[in-house]
């Protein structure tokens, strides 16, 4: 019904397409920008789980630095992504949340316990690096001097 609306404002049109999931080694990087459709967020949730399962990625970074609001719907999707990837042996880190978004989420009552966070994607990568070997590595992971 409202799909035929012309964009009434000068801002970027709502992003109805799919959010790209980029692979960097063992880590999947997803950068959310602007205002997400509910449907887009739900598709992203499925895409991430599918990609983790068939790529064997051990970490997922969701960059929220371009996101102006997180309501309870998107908050639930983020929590679900973290829970799903955890069952698939990958850790999820949410990176770059804006301070105004964090303040609002707490007031909303959505503190998302269990969601790991980092201030930047760089910090998130370091966090995943440090926690990745949850199982002892097989073989000569680190060699002592000769």
């Amino acid at each position: 019904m409202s799909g035929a609306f012309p964009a009434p404002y000068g801002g970027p049109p709502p992003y109805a397409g799919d959010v790209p999931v980029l692979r960097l080694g063992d880590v999947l990087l997803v950068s959310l920008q602007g205002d997400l459709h509910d449907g887009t967020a739900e598709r992203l949730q499925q895409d991430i789980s599918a990609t983790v399962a068939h790529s064997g990625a051990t970490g997922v970074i969701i960059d929220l630095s371009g996101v102006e609001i997180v309501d309870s719907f998107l908050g639930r999707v983020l929590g679900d992504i973290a829970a799903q990837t955890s069952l698939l042996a990958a850790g999820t880190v949410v990176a770059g949340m804006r301070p105004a978004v964090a303040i609002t989420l707490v007031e909303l009552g959505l503190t998302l316990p269990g969601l790991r966070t980092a201030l930047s994607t760089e910090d998130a990568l370091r966090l995943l690096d440090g926690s990745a070997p949850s199982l002892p590595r097989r073989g000569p992971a680190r060699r002592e001097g000769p």
Partner: protein
Amino acid sequence: MKRTADGISASLPIHSDLDLVWVRQHVRQAAAQLGFGLVEQTKLVTAASELARNTLVHGGGGLLECAPVSRGGARGLRLTFGDEGPGITDLDQALRDGYTSGEGLGMGLGGARRLVHEFAIDSRPGTGTTVTVTSWMPGAPRPREER
């Protein structure tokens, strides 16, 4: 959609999740135009998103009326969400955190109430629900007349 020249007053239909995006964009733009700070804007847009989703999911769609308000020199933004859905039988229960009739987290109504300065809900089973919220510009003393 009707909008006036001030870019603040508008009435926006809520019938799809694309409409939720327009609601968020309009409320952000209106709040920014009135001079709300970033945190206040974010709170108001988030509250609007929760309430618009309620209108869509529980009310079967409806309308948002957005209007600037002023009282004693203070300026604010009033959002009225109306639907003609089934209504809410137990308001106290609906406002409680964690209560959900659908698949959400149950934070929508109670959470939205915490994000705004004034919150009123009028619901009658069988006729629909109207939620009216108002946020005032911080900084300016609210009840005072001077300045």
